[in-house]
């Protein structure tokens, strides 16, 4: 479903701040894979997601989504294949617009936006049904400004919007990191549900090792721009935080350097 082929990326090339993030990184996701990504600070987790989404362009290599070469496609054109949720709850939705207006913007993803009336009563009914799935009482707040909702509520709606058009690929960039533990658990539960119901292929970056082990069918661990661990299926189910840390040290020859991951 997703194929990253030998990509390279260096930021600020030729300056004193030059930072080589990837040198020949490859990764393939099968149809229906739900991959959790974990790794130390500066390992390149978010950069990888941003390169796939098209927020940055790659220096070298290719990216395929569902067999289509998207390497040269601008971010907004890739959006028809990709659903995204960001770390900052404010980033995934428009604060000054209503809940239903935000959902309508997501609903138009992938087709030409013309002068068709955006929200018909039929659409509104559909949005209401989808919001019910979240079980947060948001189905009665269609005309509430997004900015008035809590971080968890916004993140849940962003998820819904990302999954709305059944994207080929769902990218979740630490989407529970800014939430309190209880809300984070709820949002993760919704994530699982949406991925399962829509049979989505997903890539989820997280700083929480327990979450990374508990969710998805495959886990990859990154260090300094390389994938140092790739565990799937039955083997993944047996993992514990301790065994994962031990594996990491063995594979990378370094201590795991992510304070947040160790503390949580």
């Amino acid at each position, binding site marked *: 479903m997703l194929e990253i082929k030998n990509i390279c990326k260096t930021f600020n090339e030729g300056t004193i701040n030059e930072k080589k993030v990837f040198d020949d990184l490859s990764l393939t996701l099968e149809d229906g894979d739900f991959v959790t990504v974990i790794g130390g600070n500066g390992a390149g987790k978010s950069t990888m997601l941003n390169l796939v*989404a098209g*927020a940055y362009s790659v220096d070298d290599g290719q990216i395929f989504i569902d067999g289509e070469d998207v390497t040269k496609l*601008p*971010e*907004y*054109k890739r*959006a*028809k294949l*990709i659903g*995204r949720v*960001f770390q900052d709850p*404010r*980033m*995934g*939705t*428009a*604060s*000054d*617009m209503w809940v239903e*207006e*935000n959902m*309508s*913007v*997501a609903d*138009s*993803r*992938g087709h030409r*936006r*013309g*002068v*068709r*009336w*955006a*929200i018909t009563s039929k659409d509104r009914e559909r949005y209401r049904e989808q919001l019910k799935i979240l079980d947060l009482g948001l189905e009665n707040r269609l005309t509430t*400004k997004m900015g008035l909702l809590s971080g968890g509520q916004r993140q849940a709606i962003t998820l819904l*919007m990302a999954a709305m058009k059944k994207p080929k690929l769902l990218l979740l960039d630490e989407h529970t990191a800014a939430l309190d533990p209880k809300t984070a658990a709820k949002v993760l539960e919704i994530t699982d549900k949406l991925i399962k119901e829509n049979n989505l292929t997903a890539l989820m970056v997280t700083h929480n090792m327990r979450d990374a082990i508990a969710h998805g069918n495959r886990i990859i661990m990154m260090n300094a721009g390389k994938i140092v661990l790739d565990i799937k299926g039955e083997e993944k189910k047996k993992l514990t935080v301790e065994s994962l840390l031990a594996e990491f040290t063995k594979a990378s020859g370094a201590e795991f350097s992510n304070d947040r991951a160790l503390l949580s």
Partner: protein
Amino acid sequence: MELIFNWLGTLPGAVAQGLAWGLMAIGVYITFKILDVADLTVDGSICTGMAVCAVLVTNGVNIWIAILCAMLAGMLAGLVTGLLHTLLGIPAILAGILTQLMLWSTNLLIMGGKANIALSRIKYGDKVLISSGSSEIYVSLAILFAFCFVVIALLYWFFGTELGMSLRSTGCNLEMSRAQGINTDFTKVFGLALSNGVVALSGSLLAQQQGAADINFGRGAIVIGLAAVIIGEALFQKKTTNFALRLFFVVCGAIIYWFVFQTVVFIGLPTELLKMLSAIVVALFLGVPFLKSRVFAKKKKRG
């Protein structure tokens, strides 16, 4: 008693000014509030609207076609600003200033090198819709009101469509808009063209109302537009979130602005000071929310 009567006599004129400028303020609202861009093109495009309308009418073209052409010329100006901003990566505010400067030359060219073209109803009769004098003020008011009504209705419809929604979300959140597949460069250019089209429409009506097109008209227009937007928002913001009503309040803001203007003139304050006053009022209104938030932040820390 006579004084009050005279003062009341200036009111219809203020309302007419307010309605015509209200359209211009709606244009400013589209860029400043919806797209979140401070577009200075309007100082030039309002004059472009005037110039195109005046030149075409004095050359015997039908007034409706002249107004339409004025709008198209304004949209073209907005397009130039939009392309300077998106294709060349020039900051929006600077792109607007550059287009504004280009427009000064362009407007002079349109007007055939003359700084002023008269367009009075006395001379051109029914070829002009709105009278510049006070003789047919109520007819003028009705026509101007109709223009405002139609423009607000059309914009209300437009911003409820998928395309309109994508313009709004572009102004709200760029990252989210791109992630949702919106070509934000396109929506920005589109919004700037739309805004300047409305501003030029306002200019074409003002040319008739003033009875002339003037090359220096429009200097500082952005401040009047912003003042109208801010007054309308300050007075009526809490009342509704309905978009059509908000646009209507912008027009009300413009009317109030001109009402105050006329009163100040009536009292006998030197008119040279008016632009200074407008600028101070806008600066205050723009600054107050910022100062407020700072004061509250400090209080919170102490508490």
